[in-house]
């Protein structure tokens, strides 16, 4: 536990010094939050049903964030070790394989979920001010579940994909692009929602959640096998 904390704190300190990571992790939340806010701003003065529809679409941006933010963080935290040749000294310490894996995952998952929730809270506050209250019938159980449960699941998915991809290449850009691509399928439900303009319903949320849990379980299985000392030293490129 102590070593896990040591690892995570160092990781954040280091990531905070990489411009790409800072821009990468801040750009998306700002963009999505801004877009969502802009939509709501446009809804001022519209009839309540139209306002609710706009609001619904705006909410979807908050499901893109948790899966996209962790990519840069996870890629740099793994590729960085490889680039700098720090893996071997690190693996020579009493740090366990499991601590290394969990540490690296938490390093990316926590800020992603945290940022998503922060931007979401800011958005709600802004909407409340602009619309003089949140349109009734939008902040329902499916939405609240999406934000509280789907977001972390999506973040874990984004992180696991990025970690797997990063272990296979030492070029951060390639890893970044590849992980970005791999993460796109999770956006499909969002595209469907916004094209159909259907409100998110409980069934869809449960379905998506179930699929994510399964996918994450498979990725976790693969990642844990990849995060063994011997594997890291001899197979990682």
């Amino acid at each position, binding site marked *: 536990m102590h070593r896990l904390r040591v690892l995570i704190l160092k990781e954040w300190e280091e990531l905070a010094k990489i411009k790409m990571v800072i821009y990468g992790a801040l750009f998306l939340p700002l963009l999505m939050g801004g877009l969502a806010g802009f939509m709501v701003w446009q809804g001022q003065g519209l009839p309540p049903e139209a306002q609710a529809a706009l609001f619904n679409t705006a909410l979807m941006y908050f499901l893109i964030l948790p899966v996209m933010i962790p990519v840069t963080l996870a890629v740099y935290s793994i590729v960085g070790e490889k680039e*700098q040749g720090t893996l071997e000294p690190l*693996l*020579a*310490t*009493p*740090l366990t394989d499991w601590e290394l894996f969990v540490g690296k995952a938490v390093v990316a998952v926590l800020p992603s979920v945290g940022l998503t929730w922060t931007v979401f809270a800011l958005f709600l506050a802004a909407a409340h001010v602009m619309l003089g209250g949140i349109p009734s019938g939008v902040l329902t159980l499916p939405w609240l579940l999406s934000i509280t449960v789907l977001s972390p699941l999506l973040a874990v998915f984004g992180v696991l994909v990025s970690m797997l991809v990063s272990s296979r290449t030492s070029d951060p850009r390639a890893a970044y692009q590849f992980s970005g691509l791999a993460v796109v399928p999770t956006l499909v439900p969002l595209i469907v929602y916004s094209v159909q303009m259907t409100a998110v319903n409980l069934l869809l949320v449960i379905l998506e959640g179930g699929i994510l849990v399964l996918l994450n379980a498979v990725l976790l299985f693969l990642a844990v096998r990849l995060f063994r*000392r011997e594997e890291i*030293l*001899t197979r990682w490129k």
Partner: protein
Amino acid sequence: MIRTEGLTRRFGDRLAVDGLTLEVREGEILGLLGPNGAGKTTTVRMLACLLAPTGGRAWVGGHEVGKEASAIRSTVGILTESPGFYKRLTLERNMRYFAELYGVPDPRSAVQRYLERLGLWDRRTDAVATLSKGLRQRLALARALVHEPKVLFLDEPTAGLDPESARDVRRFIAELADERRTILLCTHNLTEAEELCNRIAVLRTRLIALDRPAALKRRMSGSRVTVELGNPRPEFARDLGLPCVRAAELAGPTLQVEVADPERDVPALVRRLVELGAEIRAVARDERSLEDVYLELVGGNDAPA
């Protein structure tokens, strides 16, 4: 302190280390010598519990490799072949990270102690990216020591350093030996091995030789003695008549004699030459350098057992 029995590692069907059996005593520096690809790094990695052996057993500080990995990792300090650092972080932060991972009770003072000892304390707030290769190597030594390991693995500690930095590092290693740490030193530098190591193991996938540097040289250079004469005469070579002399040959003013054991036989040889009326100007044992010995050991396609 370190013991291996038939330690073996394969990568697919390539043998990297084959049946290595050796022992490093407490406080000893054992040099591991061998050409590129001989299996030095692989051996160190197995002993540091980074790679699992595919055969044989090994113990480090009384703990068995593979069974008590975490105990071994805490007792062992390792300077890896290419020691990397988090280059955006400061020297101090890098050191503190490793000290904390090793569970050093008072990381700050341990970090300060070793940064000072290696002359890096003034640069503690600089990013590692700004360090020269020599300073980086010193920092790597500091890192390998920060948890006060009893056993040290140093994989080519002076590779790529300028002569002065290399000398500093060697001096430091000698100090470490005075502190009774047990050191396994991989190197290509024979002078370094000779200067620092109590014993030398020559490895080429298999262990080819293991002995003290002087003994290795003696064993290999055998038995040639060169005598310089003021009055060279053919009978000096012909009429020696000593049982220990295997061959003698006169070339110009120098007489080359093969004896069984120079240590024992040179006095008798000199006595006999004087009896024959030789005017001896100098007697030299044909000492070969460790380099010659080493090249002979590792040379050839079939390693001599």
